[in-house]
């Protein structure tokens, strides 16, 4: 009996052992898969270096890496680094490992000494040599790619000081290594660096470095780096409310064309914000509307911010937008204070406006809109005057002052005369009788309003067409076959064709 017990026990033990081994193997295989995927991505880098095609990196590589975001592990990243850089780039490998060793979230626990299993032992020496040769040309690029992937992983885990450290090493490598292939990865590193500084509250300290990097990017014609760094600098200035400096930078440094529509979108948003604060409301509205159109649907936080600024700018311009116009359905719940604001401005009641402004003051403050919202008081009164002007043909000034909630009649008189001068309403004041006489709005078509409206629409359509035309990209491979003159066309055939042409014209 006892013997069978131990037998069963043995069987149970071996089963358990098998199970443990299996999970180990599964984990190993999972880690291998991450490593495999990263290695596949690196093949893309090699191809990009060979073809001198940075676009491969900016679009395909980064997109594929983005997909891997959920599966990254510290172990996988270190294994990938060791496998790829192991034979070919000892300095890179050492640099990379030194930086990663200091980081948390699993990086310090990984065993850096153990060599990864030799998976490729079935291949013969020739394939291995070829692979090594290919890898040699892409050593620095692969190292930078490793930094980007590590930063991505650390950002997910919110390890901000680690991110900063990794990015700084990466930037150091970038500065020595001047090829355009690495530009998109460099741009990523800059953004992560800025993000980490922002979260740690030390944005002002990296400003000098960002300016230096921007200068370097301009000198090297690194367009994606330029766009990214300009946006990061503007963000830096706006974080500290340095609107004048931001405007000075943007006015001088705004690029003519954009490679990355995401960066263009961000620039438009910052441009709109600056112009709104500096009282250029029409410019601001144009920029913010474009930004809201270009923004991808997934960028919910960004779209929310743009929508908030847009609604305030619209109110400052005197339009009272309705709900559906301003915010799409998924953002509506978070814009409640702004809708109340719009209602108060539309109603023309100063008291309600002051109530709303003080009630939501903290949320306006956190959006950076507190002072801009305070400017709306004049708009409230103006819209109140406009409502009265459309409703009445003649009304006494004392009645106006009562309706608007003003303290005295002379105030009302001044306000109405200013409104008339600014073109808000068409009316006449008679001081002796204290009456405002409003001329009702005549036929709109006799003015040039329709002309302006049509012109704006036509100009927009033509702009869209021109931009689309400029943005056409031809497939480089197709061009190779197209340019070549077909080899089997003989001289006589060409002459015959030309004669036909001449006959055609002679007729």
């Amino acid at each position, binding site marked *: 009996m006892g013997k069978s017990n131990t037998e069963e026990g043995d069987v149970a033990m071996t089963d358990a052992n098998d199970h443990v081994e299996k999970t180990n193997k599964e984990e190993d295989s999972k880690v291998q898969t991450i490593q495999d995927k990263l290695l596949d991505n690196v093949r893309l880098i090699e191809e990009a270096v060979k073809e001198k095609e940075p676009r491969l990196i900016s679009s395909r590589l980064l997109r594929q890496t983005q997909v891997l975001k959920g599966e990254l592990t510290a172990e996988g990243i270190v294994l990938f680094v060791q496998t790829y850089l192991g034979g070919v780039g000892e300095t890179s490998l050492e640099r990379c490992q030194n930086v990663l060793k200091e980081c948390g979230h699993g990086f310090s626990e990984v065993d850096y000494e153990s060599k990864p299993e030799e998976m490729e032992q079935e291949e013969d020496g020739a394939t291995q040599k070829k692979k090594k040769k290919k890898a040699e040309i892409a050593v620095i690029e692969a190292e930078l790619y490793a930094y980007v992937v590590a930063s991505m992983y650390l950002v997910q885990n919110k390890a901000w000081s680690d991110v900063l450290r990794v990015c700084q090493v990466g930037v150091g490598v970038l500065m020595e290594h001047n090829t355009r292939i690495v530009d998109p990865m460099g741009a990523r590193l800059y953004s992560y660096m800025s993000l980490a500084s922002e979260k740690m509250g030390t944005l002002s300290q990296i400003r000098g470095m960002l300016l230096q990097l921007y200068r370097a990017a301009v000198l090297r014609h690194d367009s994606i780096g330029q766009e990214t760094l300009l946006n990061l600098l503007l963000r830096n200035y706006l974080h500290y*409310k*340095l*609107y*004048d400096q931001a405007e000075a930078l943007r006015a001088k440094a705004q690029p003519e064309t954009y490679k990355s529509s995401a960066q263009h979108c961000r620039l438009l948003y910052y441009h709109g914000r600056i112009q709104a*604060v*500096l*009282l*250029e409301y029409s410019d601001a509205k144009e920029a913010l509307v474009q930004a809201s159109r270009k923004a991808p649907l997934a960028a919910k936080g960004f779209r929310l911010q743009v929508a908030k600024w847009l609604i305030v700018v619209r109110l400052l311009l005197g339009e009272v937008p309705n709900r559906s116009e301003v915010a799409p359905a998924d953002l509506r719940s978070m814009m409640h204070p702004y809708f109340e604001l719009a209602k108060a401005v539309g109603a023309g009641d100063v008291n309600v406006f002051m109530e709303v402004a003080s009630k939501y003051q903290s949320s306006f403050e956190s959006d*950076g809109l507190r*002072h801009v919202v*305070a*400017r709306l*008081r*004049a708009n409230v*009164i103006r819209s109140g005057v406009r409502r009265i002007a459309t409703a009445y043909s003649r009304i006494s000034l004392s009645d106006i002052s009562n309706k608007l909630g*003003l303290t*005295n009649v*002379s*105030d009302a*008189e*001044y*306000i*109405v*005369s*200013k*409104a*008339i*001068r600014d073109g808000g309403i068409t*009316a*006449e*004041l*008679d*001081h*002796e009788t204290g009456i405002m006489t409003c001329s009702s709005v005549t036929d709109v078509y006799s003015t*040039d309003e329709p*002309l302006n409206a049509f*012109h704006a629409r*036509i100009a927009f359509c*033509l702009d869209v*067409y*021109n931009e689309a035309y400029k943005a056409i990209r031809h497939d480089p491979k197709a061009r190779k076959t197209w340019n070549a003159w077909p080899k089997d066309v003989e001289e006589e055939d060409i002459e015959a064709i030309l004669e036909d042409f001449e006959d055609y014209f002679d007729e």
Partner: protein
Amino acid sequence: MTVPQALQKLYSDFQNCVSKQDESGFQAALSSLKIELTKLPSLPPRLEEGPGAQEERLLARDVYETAVLFTSSLGDDAGFDRNFALLKPYYLDIRDSIPASEKEPLLWGLRLLMLLVQNRIAEFHSTLELLPLDVVSATEVSYVMELEGWMMQGSYANIGSAKSSAVSPYYIPLLDRIVTTVRNEVASCSQAAYKKLRIEDAQKILDIRADEVDAYCAEYGWKKENGYILLQQSMQQDALQGLPEAERIIHNCMQYAKELERII
């Protein structure tokens, strides 16, 4: 290391000039002080930390604050801008390293008021954004913000009475200048709004004396008749407006033709 002797002497000279309202002496003292201050390492832009850093920065800030207040009372706009630009880093960049100044709200208020007087409204707003919360809620600054709100709104009557409720004596000369600006605004608003005004009413609205009425009429091209001022005779008639309209329409049409040609 405490502040060097030469600097201390210059500083006391400077303060003497200010208290005696001696303008030329003030300028000379300020220039020599500025030169001496550049030798101190802890001030912006060098911003080196050291044992005497705080004392040096406090001294420098005090110098510039006094300079700003004195130039504002002299009515020297360019000097005010210069000195305030020198003072700004002490309020913004090294805010955390020195204890807050009591005069800070007053100086920011003065700066904002100066921008308002010169009609630099965009700079007014961008400066307002820079201010930390505790400064914004101070009476000196909120007074100026209120003033700006009234000007934008058109409540010019309040501005006239604002002078009596001025928060600080330094504001008074600037408030006088604002009243002039406001008067011009009211004149142009009245031109748009009224057909004719009795002379006494015009005086009341514009807040001017009887003898100044003629000067205003001459400036704006108003005619006087039977005790009334005729305001809207001076406005151009719409006939002439047709011309720029036509030009614009032609310009637009040419643009459309050009774009369409390009497409086809």
